[in-house]
């Protein structure tokens, strides 16, 4: 189940990656790489959904907490990679909405990057009610109920921010809206790999963000048509403080 779930997520990411490629002119550069860890990663606990039996029976074996999601080859999943410096700031927000799903009392994807003012649609497939409670500091905080069978919730964020989102009814449901000023972003898949396509030639600062271990920056210069590799390594600790 878990493997299937992850490959589904990869597909979703691939899809969003392609959307970026579509509008880019020929002769653009690509930055790609892999995010790995050194050290002993924390052992993530299985999520106890016994308080919501409908959801619990959808996950067998139970899903693990996704705060630090690792896989074979020391790869780190759900790391957001984006251009923090060098790319021209987007003036017009994209009209294409990004989609956030609630399925089996889990957020899919766990980390959802988007642009400032980009439409965000929050879907629910569950037969139980959720409340969507994003907890931003810069943007206004809100908290809305979404009972089963209701149409997707339409919203957007007007300031760049890393926003934790939770459901109070199901305290294990935890995710992030990552609101960025650039359209050059990616989230690492299960193998920890990412690729930022369609970049004009130039010098950039590439930033990686992991919800537990924070930010890392690397500077890189790419020429037209070039593909360069930028790898990130996080030092992990066996305990989460």
């Amino acid at each position, binding site marked *: 189940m878990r493997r299937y779930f992850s490959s589904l997520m990869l597909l979703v990411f691939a899809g969003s990656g392609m959307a970026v490629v579509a509008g880019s002119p020929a002769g653009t550069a690509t930055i790609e790489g892999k995010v790995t860890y050194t050290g002993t990663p924390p052992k993530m606990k299985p999520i106890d959904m016994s308080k919501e039996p409908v959801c619990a029976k959808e996950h067998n074996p139970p899903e693990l907490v996704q705060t630090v999601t690792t896989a074979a080859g020391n790869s780190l999943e759900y790391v957001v990679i984006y251009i923090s410096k060098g790319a021209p700031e987007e003036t017009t927000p994209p009209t294409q909405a990004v989609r956030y799903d609630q399925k089996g009392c889990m957020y899919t994807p766990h980390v959802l990057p988007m642009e400032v003012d980009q439409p965000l649609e929050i879907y629910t497939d569950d*037969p139980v009610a959720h409340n969507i409670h994003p907890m931003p500091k810069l943007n*206004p905080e*809100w*908290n*809305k*109920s979404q*009972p089963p069978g209701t149409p997707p919730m339409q919203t957007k964020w007007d300031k760049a921010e890393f926003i934790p989102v939770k459901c109070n009814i199901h305290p294990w449901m935890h995710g992030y809206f990552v609101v960025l000023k650039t359209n050059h972003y990616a989230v690492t898949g299960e193998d920890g790999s990412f690729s930022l396509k369609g970049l004009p030639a130039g010098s950039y600062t590439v930033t990686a963000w992991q919800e537990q271990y924070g930010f890392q920056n690397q500077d890189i210069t790419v020429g037209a048509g070039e593909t360069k590799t930028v790898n990130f390594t996080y030092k992990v600790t066996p305990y989460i403080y």
Partner: protein
Amino acid sequence: MRMKTTVVAFFSGVVLLILVLAGPPCFAQIDHNIQPYTKTETSKVGRLTGHAYGVTDSGAEIYRRYCVGCHGPYGDGTGENAMWFDTTLGFSKPRDFVAGTFKCRSTPTGTLPTDDDLFNAIGRGFVTTNMPSWLALSDVQRANLVAMVKSFSPRWASEKPGTPISIPAESPATIESILHGRELFQKMECWKCHGPQGRGDGPSASTLTDDKGNPIRPYDFSTGTRFMCGETNTDLYRIFMTGLDGSPMPSFADQIKPDEAWDLVHFLRTLQIALKPPELATFMQWQQSHPGQLKPIGPEAAPGSGE
């Protein structure tokens, strides 16, 4: 001797006259208005002064005298008393005014409250927390405190308060209304936190935390205590339609239609057994004449479970 007494009497008379004419501020304008403030929709603050700084009775002065102990000098809710608020006993921590997130609003979730919302909240106090009612302060003083509270968060500089939600006239609390409200209570899964009998003991109740990660309890209807944001049916309507921002209580404005919301209000009243409200009498009467017709509320009636 006699002459002296007359002179003294004359001068004290003059002094008294001056005092009365000048109107010492300590005797003037103590307005103990014990109306339920949430009933008034017309702005009170606008007609009062609302000074944060610089005048007699300014918000800053009053804040430093009465509020700083809990809300702190920076308004971030970390005053020296804040550490003694035991959230595990159900006492919320003092509000962080810097975040600009407020529970009791007449405005939709995610928006800033109106000045009147803050004014009413200061006068009302927050039942079940350590925030008392500040009706002992004058209206002007409370209006000045509103200006002070608003000075802490940058949100007030860049955002306007939301538009208060419109509330239709209350429908009669008939048994049909109560029963429909009961269906909504099940459908919206209010019982997940508030419990099937509204006792605040739903399956998710023990796991709830507020924005700052402190434990928080859902309202227990059976006790019949005042609600967080007032005591009238309109207050109750407003609470679940706007949500209590910063707490786990979400807004149901997108899910419950305005006329249906009154049905939910009427049902919620029947849960306040300690108050013996008229809605409860109507509901009990119906139950006696229709034995065994009431569907259960809670997990056994939830879709998908047990089937």
